[in-house]
């Protein structure tokens, strides 16, 4: 045995793995472990090594090989000897930590009659042993390993109890003891172990086993895939006797080997599980894998949903000579930095694309030799070809191909945006194509062949990043066969030629703003420092919003869907309306925009489609969102918008007729889908040096014409009415001048309306007749109420015949003066629709 011991000593052991190769001819093979008549000797180290025990320091190159000594000076209870562990200083050339296993080389022992592993220990200081336990055996057999972490030492002898997770399993075990301990606070020290043995205490109870940290995991899977259950733990309650002879109960949590557990599959026709907790999917359907220790059910489970045999993506047929492949088993792939850049600092959550040892790079799953990427928890992920490998010159390619298989239900509004970045970090440009919910397929392959022209890249000679962006709308996808190719149409540079409409055209950037930055409050512009913005697309999908874009991409300016020559541009598509929020998202703490010193708002618009008569984009501002809010809008009609070119708009803020502009929370672009594809840039407020903004406007007095730039025509609405100042929509009848009018839209509620608080009281001493132009296409009563807030009032109702613009005359009998004018369109009724008012005058 001496020779054998020496041989093993020199080979020693690997921490954690404990792989060891016994010399041929060794008498003691591991076969002995399964032989019946093993000793039940419980002693490990009492006053010396017990029979068969041997010391194996970890052979990882870091463990101090001579850290263990038998000490006859310092012992527990003045016995003959103890174990002393000398933990080295971190810079000790002979090793930086102490770690070893003690293994019974007599073939192992039957310890099934004991319930605890106990010892006395103390240290030269009150250190914390990193890990300690038993069950690390020969040939890396750790099935019955038990590990306690962070065992606190005292400087006096103290008894420690490590419960056996399930004694009945210990019919043959050779790993008697192991430990691993680093220096404490940068310095070595010594600790002693004595009376190390297994014993039957009879005070171990309340087993609470768990796997997977107690989590119930659901995995979507396929036949032939395997999974390994991890995190085997057992918690037991022990009784500790304190120095004063009183007892206390204490839970001890053990990390243990799989061997203590019994595993079970609810449906072995779908998934099987072996005695080490390795699950193999064998059929289609659902199976739940559970575990128990000694008949006690473990918390945690694996619910496998097997979709049966995995259907691989269609094998590409494009001639390899016409292909630049990024990820495909059908072609030779170009060198790739990574298939997942893990831009976690930018909020990336996406996992996958990391491959596994021995598999193709990036392939998380290999089925029938076909490597497949499985991105999970997807929000965005980048495939890089720019760090340590050449970027890709796709100038001569016409298309990008990718196969995507969505592993979850697809909801309306879900999408995956594929984005290409050229010249990453160095005059970088990017372009993207969005794959919508109507295209994506659940549990099936979608093969995409996207014309590269659709990405609107001016240059694709140095492609460095491919992004898949779902913004977490889709979280679990398989991806395969990512490659560029030329379909023979010659394509290449020059804007994608015959791709039709403005779609293929490379857009140019908007004019660079020239307003002095000191006079600007910028919302979205590369020319200025933008104020904090909650979002450039609020995705008010519950309100029927269809608009996409304004979401930006990783590494780019916030909100910029496209970056051209360093200029970020918003690209709204499927536009019906979209909001840019400032200080309105409760999950962010951005301030609202104070534009009270500003006179104008600037925005550049580029309509990326044909414009028809009646098309429009309305720009709407909302101040004090949700809290006595006021809103106003300005409409850009088809006459001023341009297809395929930038138009710069500079709109006086007074045109919005806001009650205030000191807390602007939302900017809306509204097209009602008349315009669906538009680029937006340089959104900012500025002052042109004239008098300040709407804050300096005066409240109205009669006559109210809606046309005086110096008057703030904001009105307070109630019970559902919507009010704004608009151009006279129907120049006719009693109001046949093109001017501003008030627009009142009823929601259908009773007693809804608006009121104006006047700058000066309306004094009936100056005349008791008030006339008002009212536009209605239905016959309704119009009620004019002149009042003090919650006080005295006079009111007169007049009927409107519904013929369009009519002048109504209200005759009051009062000589008092009042500060408020309130208007009800069909006050008692429930009419819906839009009415207009103008020219409210006192006669």
């Amino acid at each position, binding site marked *: 045995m001496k020779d054998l011991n020496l041989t093993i000593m020199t080979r020693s052991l690997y921490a954690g793995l404990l792989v060891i190769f016994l010399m041929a001819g060794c008498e003691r093979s591991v076969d002995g472990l399964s032989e019946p008549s093993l000793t039940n000797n419980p002693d490990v180290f009492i006053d010396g090594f017990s029979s068969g025990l041997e010391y194996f320091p970890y052979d990882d190159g870091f463990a101090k090989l001579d850290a263990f000594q038998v000490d006859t000076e310092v012992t527990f209870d003045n016995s003959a000897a103890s174990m002393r562990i000398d933990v080295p200083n971190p810079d000790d050339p002979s090793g930086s930590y102490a770690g070893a296993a003690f293994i019974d080389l007599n073939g192992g022992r039957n310890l099934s009659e004991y319930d605890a592993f106990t010892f006395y220990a103390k240290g030269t200081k009150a250190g914390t042993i990193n890990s300690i336990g038993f069950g690390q055996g020969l040939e890396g057999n750790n099935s019955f390993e038990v590990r306690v972490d962070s065992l606190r030492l005292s400087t006096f002898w103290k008894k420690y109890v490590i419960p056996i997770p399930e004694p009945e399993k210990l019919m043959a075990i050779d790993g008697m003891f192991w430990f691993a301990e680093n220096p404490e606070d940068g310095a070595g020290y010594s600790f002693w172990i004595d009376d190390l043995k297994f014993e039957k205490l*009879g*005070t171990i109870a*309340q087993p609470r086993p768990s796997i997977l940290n107690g989590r119930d995991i659901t995995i979507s899977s396929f036949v032939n895939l395997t999974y390994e259950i991890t995190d085997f733990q057992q918690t037991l*309650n022990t*009784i500790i006797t304190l120095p004063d002879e009183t*007892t*206390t*109960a204490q839970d001890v949590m053990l990390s243990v080997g799989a061997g203590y557990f019994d595993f079970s599959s609810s449906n072995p026709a779908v998934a099987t599980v072996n005695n080490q907790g390795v699950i193999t999917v064998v059929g289609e359907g659902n199976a739940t894998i559970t575990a128990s220790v000694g008949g006690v059910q473990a918390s945690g489970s694996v619910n496998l949903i097997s979709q049966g045999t995995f259907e691989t993506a269609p094998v590409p047929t494009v001639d390899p000579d016409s292909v630049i492949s990024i990820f495909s088993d059908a072609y030779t792939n170009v060198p790739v930095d990574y298939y997942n850049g893990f831009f976690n600092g930018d909020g990336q959550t996406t996992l996958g694309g990391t491959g596994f040892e021995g598999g193709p790079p990036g392939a998380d799953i290999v089925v029938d030799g076909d490597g497949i990427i499985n991105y999970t928890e997807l929000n965005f992920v980048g495939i890089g070809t720019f760090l340590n490998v050449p970027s890709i010159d796709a100038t001569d390619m016409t298309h990008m191909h990718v196969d995507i298989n969505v592993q979850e239900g697809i909801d309306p509004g879900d999408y995956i945006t594929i984005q290409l970045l050229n010249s990453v970090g160095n005059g970088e440009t990017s372009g993207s194509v969005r794959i919508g919910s109507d295209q994506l397929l659940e549990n099936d392959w979608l093969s995409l062949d996207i014309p590269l022209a659709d990405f609107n890249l001016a240059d694709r000679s140095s492609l460095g990043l491919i992004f898949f962006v779902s913004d977490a709308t889709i979280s679990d996808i398989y991806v395969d066969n990512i490659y560029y190719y030329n379909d023979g149409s010659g394509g290449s540079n020059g804007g994608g030629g015959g791709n039709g409409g403005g779609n293929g055209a490379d857009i140019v950037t908007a004019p660079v703003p020239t307003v002095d930055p000191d006079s600007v409050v910028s919302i979205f512009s590369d020319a200025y420092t933008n104020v904090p913005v909650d979002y450039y697309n609020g995705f008010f999908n519950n309100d029927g919003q269809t608009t996409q874009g304004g979401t930006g991409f990783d590494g780019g300016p916030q909100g910029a869907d496209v970056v051209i020559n360093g200029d970020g541009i918003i690209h709204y598509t499927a536009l019906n309306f979209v909001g840019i929020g400032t200080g309105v998202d409760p999950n962010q703490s951005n301030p609202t925009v104070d534009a009270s010193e500003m006179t104008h708002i600037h925005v550049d618009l580029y309509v990326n489609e044909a414009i028809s008569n009646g098309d429009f984009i309305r720009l709407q501002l909302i101040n004090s969102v949700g809290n006595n809010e006021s809103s106003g809008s300005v409409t850009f009609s088809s006459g001023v918008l341009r297809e395929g070119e930038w138009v710069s708009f500079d709109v006086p803020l007074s045109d919005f007729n806001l009650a205030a502009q000191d807390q602007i929370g939302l900017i809306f672009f509204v097209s009602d889908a008349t315009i669906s594809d538009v680029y937006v840039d340089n959104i900012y407020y500025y002052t042109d040096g004239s008098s300040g903004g709407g804050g300096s406007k005066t409240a109205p007095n009669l006559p109210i014409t809606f046309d005086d730039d110096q008057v703030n025509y904001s009105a307070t609405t109630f019970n559902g009415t919507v009010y704004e100042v608009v151009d006279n929509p129907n120049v006719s009848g009693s109001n046949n001048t093109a001017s501003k009018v008030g627009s009142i839209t009823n929601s259908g509620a009773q007693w809804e309306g608006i009121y104006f608080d006047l700058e000066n009281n309306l004094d009936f001493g100056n005349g008791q007749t008030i006339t008002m132009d009212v536009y209605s296409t239905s016959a309704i009563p119009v009620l004019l109420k002149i009042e003090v807030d919650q006080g005295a009032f006079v009111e007169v109702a007049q009927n409107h015949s519904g013929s369009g613009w009519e002048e109504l005359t209200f005759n009051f009998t009062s000589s008092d003066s009042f500060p408020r004018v309130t208007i009800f369109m069909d006050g008692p009724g429930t009419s819906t629709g839009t009415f207009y008012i103008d020219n409210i005058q006192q006669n």
Partner: protein
Amino acid sequence: MKARVLSIVLLSCMIVFQACTESNNEPENEFNTLVWSDEFDTEGSIDTTKWLFDIGTGVEIFGTPGWGNNELQYYTDRPENIKVENGLLEITARKENFNGSGYTSAKILTRGLFERTYGRYEARILLPFGQGIWPAFWLLGDDSNGSVIWPQIGEIDIMEYRGQQPTIIHGSVHGPGYSAGQAVTDEYSLRSGRFDSEFHVFAIEWGPDFIRYFVDDELYNEITPADVNGEWVFNDNVFYIILNVAVGGSFVGSPNSSTPFPQAMYVDYVRVYAHDN
């Protein structure tokens, strides 16, 4: 019943020889006439000819929930909380929201069904585990239709236990001048084993001017009128039996995140023997 006593004597001889020699002076074989028992051998629900249930939080009786002790459970008679299975009564405390309480459990009493003075009361019980679990096997004196109130009616706690101390039980009496925190009490600590991992027998032998406390037939305390700071109320009133598992309360403290739920108390039998003469 001779056989039972013999086996106990034999057992105690084998385990603690010295206790056996002393036992010649112990009156431990005076209670041999079985007068009442529930062996819990009928599967299913509780024998309502022997037991009635307390339901709820005690708010109707005490004015506030908690059965006078700030307990947290809602007592029910549902099988989730109380049933007879495999020859055992099983009272299960659960962590669940129920009628405004965060826990449920059960409590049964022989009030009005079986009440007497004196005797040997014993039960074989496997106790639950965990911080804040408070099972008990106890007797309460008859209140003469409400004309006498606690503690004047008297209370004999044969076994009380804190789930966080699985090797210790407590035996107590409460009466006028020695109730609640001033109760006359003693605890018994197991020298090996645990109350939550195997069955143990809890008993009192109660006669004129004495109540003796036993665990596994080991006498660990005797209480007499000399020990109480007030009137001895255990010689003339009749008492009924109570079994319950409380959750939380002033005796045991509240459960915490390490308390495993559900927790069950298993009772093999409850037996009452009268004195031989």
